[in-house]
C-alpha cells in the first residue's frame, strides 16, 4: 500500500475505482430487475440467480478456459431461473414475492451443491482495459484499469433506455406493466410478455454473478454475494424504474461499498464492520426517503404490487 505517494488523495481515488469495481454487478442486476418490473412483476429471487450465475460462469470458465463462454452459460442459466419464476407466477393465487424468496433459496442451494468441486481450481479472468497507461502512479493505473463488463453495462444502460422509450418492444413492455387490461385490449398476451421479461431479467442478473466470480473478487465460493441481488431490487425503486437512474444509483452504491476498504487501505481500521454495512444502510435510507404511505412511488408501473 503506497498511498503515501499521493497521500489522502488515495481515498477518493480508491472510492472511484471501487465504485466502478463494486457497481458492475449492481448495474446488471438492476437493469434486469428494471426490465422485469417494467412488465409488472417483481422478482426477489435475483439473489439466487446471481449466485447461480456466478457458479455457472466459474465452472464453465474452469472447464473450457474461456471466461466469455462462462458469461454465456451464466446467461442461459439465469434465463432458465427467470423462466421458472415467470412460469409459476402466471398461475392464479401464487404470490410473486414469496416465489422470489423460494427461488432465492433454491438457487443458493443448487449453486452450493453443484459448485462444490469448483471452489479449488482457478478460472481465467475477464479482461480489463488499462485506461491509466499515461500515468506513472500505480494507484491511478490500478484505479483506471476498467473491466469490460462495466463498459458493456454502461452501453446497455443507454440502449435499454432507448429501447424502452422508442421501440415497439419497449412500448409493449410498458403497456403490460401499466395495465394488464389495456395490454389485453391491444391484443398483447401479458403473461407471455412477463415471462420473457422475467427470463431476460434473470439473464442480466446472472451476468452480474459472472462478474463476481470471474473478475472481482474473481473466485467462486459460497460467500461470494453479499446481498447484491436484493439491494438491486431496492435500487430499482430508488431509480424510479429508469435505466440511467439504475446506472447512477449503482455507482453510488459501489462507492458506498468501497468506503470501508478505501479507508482501511490508508490505515483507518476502527469501525470496519460498520463501513461494511454502509451500502445496506444507504439502501434503507434511500427507500425510506423515496417511499410514501399514501401515494405510489412516481414512475412505478401500474400493475406492479410492491406493497400489497
Amino acid at each position, binding site marked *: 500500500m503506497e498511498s503515501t505517494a499521493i497521500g489522502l488523495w488515495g481515498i477518493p481515488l480508491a472510492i472511484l475505482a471501487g465504485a466502478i469495481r463494486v457497481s458492475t454487478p449492481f448495474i446488471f442486476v438492476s437493469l434486469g430487475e428494471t426490465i422485469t418490473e417494467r412488465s409488472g412483476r417483481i422478482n*426477489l429471487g435475483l439473489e439466487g440467480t446471481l449466485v447461480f450465475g456466478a457458479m455457472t460462469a466459474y465452472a464453465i470458465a474452469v472447464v473450457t478456459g474461456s471466461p466469455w463462454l462462462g458469461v454465456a452459460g451464466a446467461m442461459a442459466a439465469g434465463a432458465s431461473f427467470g423462466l*421458472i419464476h415467470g412460469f*409459476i407466477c402466471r*398461475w*392464479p*393465487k*401464487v*404470490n410473486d*414475492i*414469496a*416465489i422470489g*424468496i*423460494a*427461488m432465492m*433459496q*433454491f*438457487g*443458493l*442451494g*443448487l449453486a*452450493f*451443491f453443484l459448485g*462444490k468441486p469448483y471452489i479449488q481450481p482457478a478460472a481465467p479472468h475477464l479482461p480489463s482495459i488499462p485506461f491509466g497507461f499515461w500515468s506513472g502512479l500505480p494507484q491511478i493505473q490500478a484505479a483506471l484499469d476498467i473491466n469490460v463488463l462495466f463498459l458493456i453495462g454502461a452501453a446497455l444502460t443507454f440502449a435499454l433506455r432507448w429501447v424502452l422509450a422508442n421501440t415497439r418492444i419497449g412500448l409493449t413492455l410498458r403497456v403490460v406493466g401499466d395495465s394488464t387490461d389495456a395490454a389485453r385490449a391491444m391484443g398483447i398476451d401479458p403473461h407471455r410478455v412477463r415471462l420473457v421479461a422475467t427470463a431476460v431479467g434473470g439473464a442480466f442478473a446472472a451476468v452480474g454473478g459472472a462478474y463476481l466470480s470471474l473478475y472481482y473478487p474473481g473466485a467462486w465460493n459460497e460467500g461470494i454475494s*453479499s*446481498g447484491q441481488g*436484493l*439491494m438491486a*431490487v*431496492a435500487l430499482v*425503486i430508488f431509480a424510479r424504474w429508469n435505466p440511467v437512474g439504475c446506472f447512477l444509483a449503482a455507482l453510488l452504491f459501489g462507492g458506498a461499498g468501497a468506503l470501508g476498504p478505501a479507508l482501511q487501505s490508508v490505515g483507518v481500521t*476502527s*469501525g*470496519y*464492520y*460498520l463501513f*461494511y*454495512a454502509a451500502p*445496506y*444502510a444507504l*439502501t*434503507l435510507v434511500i*427507500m*425510506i426517503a423515496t*417511499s*410514501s*404511505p*399514501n401515494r405510489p412511488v412516481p414512475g412505478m408501473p401500474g400493475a406492479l404490487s*410492491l*406493497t*400489497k
Partner: protein
Amino acid sequence: MTIGIDNLSEAAVPAAGSWAGHLAEWTARRLEPVVIGLGAILIGLVLFSLFILALGKSPLLLFQLMYTGGFASWFSIQNSLSRAAPLLLTALCVALPARLGLVVIGGEGALALGGVAAAAAALPLAHLLPPVPTLAGIALAAMLAGGIWIGCVGALRHYRGVNETISSLLMSYIAIAVMNQLIEGPLRDPASLNKPSTLPLPADYLIGPLPGMDVHWGFAIGIATCVLSYLLIETTTWGFAARVAGGNTRAAEVQGLPVGRLIVGFTALAGACAGLAGMIEVAAVQGSANGSLIAGYGYTGILVAFLARHNPLAIIPVAILIGGIDASGGLIQRRMGLPDATVLVLQGTLFVVILACETLYGRFKPFNPDLWKRDL
C-alpha cells in the same frame, strides 16, 4: 391425517344431522391444506429424486439416510429436536407478521442482535443475580433487541410505505454487521483469539437440558411460544383484528381498527421471537455470542413458516421435520459423497413447489365447505 378423502363422496354426505353436517364442513375446510400440503411435498420429493437420479445416485438410499440421520434412533431424534429449537422461533418471526399480510424475512439479523444483547446483558446480571433471574433478564434483553429491530420494519411499512420484505433483509445485513463490530470490538473477550467472541457465560448460568433428555430447554421454550402465538392469533381480539387488517387494510381502517399499532405490535413480537432464538443459541449452545450465530436459522425459519402456512401449531411438526433433514446432512455427505448442500437443494425444491401449489386451493370440489353446508 389418514382420513381417506375418497370416502367423502356425495353418497357419504350425512343426512339431515346438523352436527354431522358441521363436522363434514369443518373437516373439508381443515383437510384442504393438509392434503394439498402433503401432495406438494410428494411432488417436491419426486422432483428432487429425479435430480438425484440424474446424478447417478440412489434417492431411496438418500431418503433412508435422511430418516436414519434425523429420526431413527433416540440420539438422532434428540439431535433433530435441538436443531428444531431455533427454527420454531425464527419461523414465528415470519408467521406472526404474515397474519397481517406482511412478508418479513429478516429473522437472521434479529437472531444475531438478540444473541449479542443476551451476551452483553449476561455479564452485569450474572454478578448480581442467581441463574434463573439472570436468564430471564437476558431473555428480556434479547427479545427487546430483536423486537425493536423488526418492529422498526413494521413501523417503516406502515408509516412510510417501505416494502417490508426488502427492508427486513437490509436490516438483517446491518444487524449482522453491528454484531460483528460488537464482538470484534467493545464486547470482545481478549482470550478469544481466532474466533472473536464475547466473554463466555459462567457454566452454571447456561440453559441446561430437559429432564431425561439431551435436548436443551430452548426446545420447550420454542414449543410454548408457538402455542402462545396460536392462542394469540386464534382466540384473542388482537389476533382477529390482525387477520381482518391483513385481509383488507382499508376496510380495517374504516372499521376503526388500529392498523398501525397492530402492524408494529405484531412485527415487534415477531422480532422478539427471533431475538429469543438468539438468546437460546447463546445461553444453551454457544456459551457466548460469536460468528456461529449466523448459521442460517433465520432463513430456514422462512421455509418452515411457509410450509406451515403461517399456522403456529403447524410450525412445531414442520420445524422438527426440517431440523431432522438438517441433522442428516452430515451423514448424507459421508455415506453418499454428496455435498452438504444437498439438504439445501431439497429444501429449496420443496419451498418452490409448495408455493406453486398455492394455486390449487379452491380447485378441488370435495374441499369446498359450501358443498357440505347445504341444507342436508
